[in-house]
């Protein structure tokens, strides 16, 4: 094995033996990230109330612990930044410095810097990529500035001496005696551990443990298999023959228990939307500082739980909508005062459950959407014909068209016209809906409705020849066996059927997929009235096999983008059934 050439001092990544132990390093990254998250929360609290000593102490402990751990592992660059911030915080704690928003800005920036470090270290752990340490010169300079500026107003002698000592220290520390430093940092770190974890538990969390998400996903997969295996046993024809009552009872009990276990496993993937909301808190604060507007964020329903993946997928769209609100919707304090509104604008984020869906509301009390501006822009972009009659709702929905934007100038925050159509696409991807409500001058509301679980759908099992396909029930309107009079053909080629007074096109699944059906005679087949993308049509299948709740599994690799297929699912007998994508099928060639 080759050893890396390292010139001590010049190489900030002075990874000694301890740091090259992946488990230790991994633990450090996880812990540090947690401390940094907590630090951010406390910083935002401190921002609201600069006299909040509890928050100040918590932030101090956070950086102090990270400094200690970094020293133990031999990461002097991380140690240095943490140390500098700790110095400033210590001054604040002892009254030698008053916390202003400028301080919060710099400390937040330090937190971001350390987060970057953690990402680089994570890269090292997962891909073996040599970490690229983020530049720290500017950051350190701004941190120094913080303590320097306040020394004049504080009691002179002591504070100045303390600052000089502190400034002298970091230079000496990492270089001088790593072992001594490491040992002292280690004892300091363990001493700091207890109070730090105390803060964690006090922040109102229910009792919980940390679980590696990989283990969780594996468990959910295994439980899924267990349900199938159990179902195979229960429906085994040999068992049906014996018909012993005790056996039947036991199998029923097994089925019940398996169902419970599955429900619990799925529930384990649910997490509260809180983390998404907290991201917004930070975002709104940063935006409000940047734009100079006064904004207050109200959060309701942070305990609302949803599937982990959905939370991740919603992050970007929600962030974009909040940005839009702040940038375009909310007026400056002066404008608001002139309009008779409160100088501070309010943004509301509300989450709630409703019948298997999660409702997310993003409201602001700003200008609201201007139908005139939108219509004008849409006409300019050629999206709307002259003289077309559009309801307010139609006009609002124009903002989802690609390339659309009514911003007078492209601001650095948003306004490039990329946003809303991407947001809508993302919501549709989650099989959700998005609605707009707005009153000019009063404000605007975006309502998102997303199904609770991405992965499970109710499916209708339909056979075509030897193949079994799964038709998503949400697309099914009705099913019937047609009689001759209902059927007709247009131009020798397009088959149609009369359903409740409407003529619907017929789509022969066997032709689209190239499979041999049991019969080509329509009056011997089953027609499934399907609706997709606003269009109704009839799918032709041989028979209905049943109804099943299925977990959508991606077909993997190159099979992912086949038109007409949404994925695969494991059927009760262990076979794979292909899940149809009704919209895709309608658009496929080969009638």
């Amino acid at each position: 094995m080759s050893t890396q050439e390292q010139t001590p001092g010049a190489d900030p990544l002075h990874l000694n033996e301890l740091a090259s132990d992946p488990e230790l390093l991994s633990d450090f990254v996880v812990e540090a990230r947690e401390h940094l998250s907590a630090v951010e929360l406390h910083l935002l609290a401190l921002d609201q109330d600069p006299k909040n000593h509890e928050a100040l102490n918590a932030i101090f402990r956070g950086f102090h612990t990270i400094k200690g751990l970094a020293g133990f592992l031999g990461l002097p660059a991380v140690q240095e930044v943490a140390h500098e911030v700790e110095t400033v915080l210590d001054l604040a704690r002892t009254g030698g410095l008053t916390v202003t928003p400028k301080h919060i800005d710099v400390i937040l920036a330090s937190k971001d810097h350390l987060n970057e470090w953690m990402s680089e270290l994570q890269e090292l752990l997962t891909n073996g990529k040599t970490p690229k340490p983020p530049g720290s010169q500017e950051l350190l300079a701004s941190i120094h500035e913080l303590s320097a500026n306040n020394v004049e107003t504080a009691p002179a002698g002591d504070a100045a001496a303390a600052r000089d000592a502190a400034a002298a220290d970091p230079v000496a520390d990492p270089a001088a005696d790593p072992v001594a430093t490491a040992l002292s940092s280690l004892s300091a770190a363990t001493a700091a551990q207890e109070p730090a974890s105390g803060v964690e538990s006090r922040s109102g969390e229910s009792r919980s443990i940390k679980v590696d998400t990989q283990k969780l996903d594996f468990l959910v997969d295994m439980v899924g298999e267990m349900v199938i295996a159990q179902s195979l046993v229960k429906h085994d024809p040999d068992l049906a023959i014996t018909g012993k009552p005790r056996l039947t009872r036991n199998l029923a009990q097994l089925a019940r228990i398996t169902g419970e276990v599955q429900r619990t496993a799925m529930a384990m993937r649910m997490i509260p939307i809180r983390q998404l909301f907290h991201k917004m808190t930070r975002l709104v604060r940063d935006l409000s500082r940047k734009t100079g507007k006064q904004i207050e964020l109200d959060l309701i329903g942070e305990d609302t739980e949803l599937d982990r993946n959905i939370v991740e997928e919603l992050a970007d769209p929600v962030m974009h909508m909040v940005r839009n609100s702040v940038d375009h919707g909310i007026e400056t304090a002066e404008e608001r005062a002139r309009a008779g509104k409160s100088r501070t604008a309010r943004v509301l984020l509300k989450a709630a459950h409703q019948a298997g869906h999660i409702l997310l509301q993003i409201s602001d009390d700003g200008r609201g959407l201007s139908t005139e501006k939108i219509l004008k822009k849409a006409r300019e972009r050629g999206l709307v014909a002259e003289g077309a009659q559009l309801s307010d709702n139609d006009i609002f929905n124009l903002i989802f068209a690609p390339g659309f934007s009514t911003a007078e100038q492209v601001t650095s925050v948003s306004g490039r016209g990329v946003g809303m159509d991407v947001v809508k696409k993302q919501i549709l991807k989650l099989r959700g809906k998005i609605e707009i409500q707005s009153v000019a001058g009063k404000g605007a509301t975006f309502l998102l409705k997303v199904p609770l679980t991405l992965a499970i759908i109710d499916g209708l099992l339909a056979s075509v020849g030897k193949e079994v396909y799964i038709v998503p029930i949400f697309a099914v309107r009705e099913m019937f066996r047609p009689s001759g009079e209902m059927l007709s053909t247009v131009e020798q080629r397009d088959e149609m059927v009369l359903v409740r007074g409407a003529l619907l096109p017929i789509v022969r699944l066997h032709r689209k997929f190239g499979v041999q059906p049991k019969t080509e005679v329509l009056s011997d087949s089953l027609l499934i009235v399907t609706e997709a993308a606003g269009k109704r049509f009839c799918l032709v299948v041989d028979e209905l096999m049943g109804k099943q709740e299925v977990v959508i599994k991606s077909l993997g690799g190159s099979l992912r983008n086949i038109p007409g297929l949404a994925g695969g699912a494991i059927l009760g007998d262990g076979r794979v059934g292909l899940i149809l994508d009704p919209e895709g099928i309608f658009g496929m060639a080969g009638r």
Partner: protein
Amino acid sequence: MSSSVLTAEAAVAMKTDPRAGKYLTFGLGKEEFAIQVLRVREIMGVQEITAVPQTPDYVKGVINLRGKVIPVVDLRLKFGMPELEYTQRTCIVVVQIEQEGSKMLTGVVVDEVSEVVTLQGADIEDTPDFGRGVATPYLLGMAKVKGRVKILLDINMVMTTQEIHGLAEALA
């Protein structure tokens, strides 16, 4: 720089062939192929494969691998050999391949599976030029084991390359 001089043979012997290692050998038609064991996840008897429309003929469909849905490719068809009806000896070899940075499991249908052999660098020779402009980047080389020639496949390349029909003709 070192000033010691190595003899040609000693220099060659010192170089370890990166292709050396354990291989799983299997048969396709008259030929014997081998793929690196590190890529093999499991081997199973051929089972019912759900056909997927709109795929090339060598993509037989998908199967249920303990709750995961994975695609299955018929190697005969991929290489342009005539298709054969599946027998009791037909196997699906599940391999792990990498495409665009992500790892995937895929099944490969083969006539029969033979054994695992350990190949040394000395056993492996470079692929001969088949002439007729047939480029074969998916062939790692050839190896002679117990008097029989095995063709070493880079299974990753095989699965990620579109058309490999030339192989059947080249080997004929």
